[in-house]
């Protein structure tokens, strides 16, 4: 394999994992948007908390890595239930400005609680995987990387199946399409709201817990990821589940290629420019028929 091709493969491989994480976060965000009509600016904080709780449970509590990951997700789920009961329940049918301001406030609150608890220095989740690289025909990777890829990919597929194949997913989709009619046929809307919110939070927390092994876990990481996830949601079409998955992968790959061939400082701008262009020329999203 030529060197150029190997480098390209390396960039693409790096992009896929980040893309999977974006997809997981955007899936929850787009569901919450579709079902609850809330642009949840605090969504990235679930990702951040997933990462920090995994770090906390492994490093400071001394839990086994494979136990710590689901525990971290479970704790975030608990938090999401509390938030739904205390705050998000009140945002039903509220104007856009209200829901946005409240979720921005919540995002600041969670970020700075994390700062208070764990400090500003970037942390990393210790993993039991050996750091030795694996050579895949010129492209190098690590066991941790392959594990993370497998987990995030499995979660995406699982999330997709839940939405497409289960009764719960069907009820969510029905609520998304028509709230009143769904209530009329006996779907308990309050429960669907709760399930959607918690499910979305769990996916984001899982992404954070898994990626915490590579990328620095810090209190400010949630804000950036929220914006990226919004980019993905707009690219894929707001409320479109499939669009969130494809959009997430596309953004991850585009950023990896941008960082590799253009400039790492500007890679974050790719998504933001893309959003403006998409809203200008294809406001319904890239993957939806108008």
């Amino acid at each position, binding site marked *: 394999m030529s060197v150029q091709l190997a480098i390209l493969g390396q960039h693409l491989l790096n992009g896929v994992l980040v893309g999977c994480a974006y997809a997981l976060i955007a899936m929850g965000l787009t569901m919450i*948007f579709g079902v609850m009509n809330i*642009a949840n600016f605090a969504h990235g904080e679930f990702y951040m908390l997933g990462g920090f709780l995994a770090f906390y449970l492994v490093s400071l509590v001394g839990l086994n890595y494979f136990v710590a990951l689901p525990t971290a997700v479970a704790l975030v789920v608990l938090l999401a239930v509390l938030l739904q009961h205390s*705050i998000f329940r*009140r945002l039903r049918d509220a104007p*856009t*400005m*209200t829901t*946005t*301001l*409240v979720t*921005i*406030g*919540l*995002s*600041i*609150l*969670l*970020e*700075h*609680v994390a*700062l*208070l608890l764990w400090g500003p220095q970037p942390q990393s989740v210790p993993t039991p995987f050996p750091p030795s690289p694996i050579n895949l025909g010129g492209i190098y990777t690590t066991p941790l990387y392959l594990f993370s890829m497998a987990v995030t990919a499995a979660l995406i597929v699982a999330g997709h199946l839940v939405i497409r194949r289960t009764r719960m997913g069907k009820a969510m989709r029905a609520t998304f399409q028509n709230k009143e009619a769904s209530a009329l046929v006996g779907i308990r809307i309050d429960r669907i709201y709760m399930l959607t919110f918690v499910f979305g939070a769990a996916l984001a927390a899982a992404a954070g817990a898994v990626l915490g092994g590579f990328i620095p876990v810090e209190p400010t990481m949630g*804000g950036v990821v929220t*914006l990226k996830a*919004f*980019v993905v949601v*707009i690219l894929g079409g*707001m409320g479109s589940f499939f669009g969130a998955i494809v959009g997430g992968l596309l953004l991850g790959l585009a950023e990896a290629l941008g960082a590799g061939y253009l*400039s790492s*400082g*500007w890679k*974050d*701008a790719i*998504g*933001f*420019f893309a*959003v*403006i262009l998409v*809203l*200008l020329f294809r*406001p319904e999203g890239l993957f939806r028929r108008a």
Partner: protein
Amino acid sequence: MRETPAQHPIALLATLVVLLAVPLVVRDEYFLHLFIVSGIFVIVAISLDLMVGYVGQLSLAHAAFFALGAYTSALLFVRFKWSMWVGIPAAGLVTALAAFLLGLVILRTRGHRFIIITVAFSEIMKLAATNWVDVTRGFMGLPGLQIPTLTIPGIGAIDIASKERFYYVVLIAAVLTFLACRALVRSRIGRAFVLVRENEVLAESLGISAFRYCMIAFVIGAGLAGAAGSLYAHYVGFVSPDLFNFSWVTVMLIMVILGGKGTLVGPALGAVIFTFLPELLREALQWRMIIFGTILIVATLFMPRGIIFPLLEHLVPSRWRTRHARAA
């Protein structure tokens, strides 16, 4: 709609007298500094209120306009030695132009999409300030800005660099902004703003273009924010990409929401309160943003009119209030 005591002409005049006396009474440099920063944020909060309170669109790009103005002025000073007197109008014009171009794209969208693109715009601006190192010096920022002397024909050059003097410059700028915006929202344009906010379909059916009036509020608001940014840059003497941080827009929104959106006086008071309050909480620095986040959640959910006007109505007997037609 009934006018609250805070908007009575006599109340405004009394406030102005008190504000004029501030440097005579407050000898502490640090408190004067807070008064100056409050004054700059009064301009910012009032200009944000045009968009958030009057046409009812939540723009999260306001801090980016403030920072863009600060950078414009700083670059003109550092590269071309243009003083603040050129910098302020230049910053206002550049940000107003940026808002116009952005507005052409985003004012056709509403709701979530509008909000999200204003964030995307802010992030692009931040990345530019950080990565365009040849021009902006990246993270190092642009230092060394100065406050110029004020030359008045017939009187000569006056040094305004001291805090006592610069306070008056900021005060004049804030009062002029307030009067201009009040004239705007009480005019036909201001009534169109409110109609667009309350019922866009009705506005359009009456031939009032929502796009056009959103654009007017957006461009004027951005221009004022940019001018305020220029004032701030020259006062602090330093600009860096931190000016684009999201926390700035949060603080601005808290000023407007808690002050009482759509009232101009409320956000102005909010700007003063929320410049002083964080400093009084200095002991508990790490709690500051936690408190701010909580305030934003609670105020948005439970205090849609802010704190100032409901509090005044509670405290002041109703017979003291005057009746006066106004736009909001």
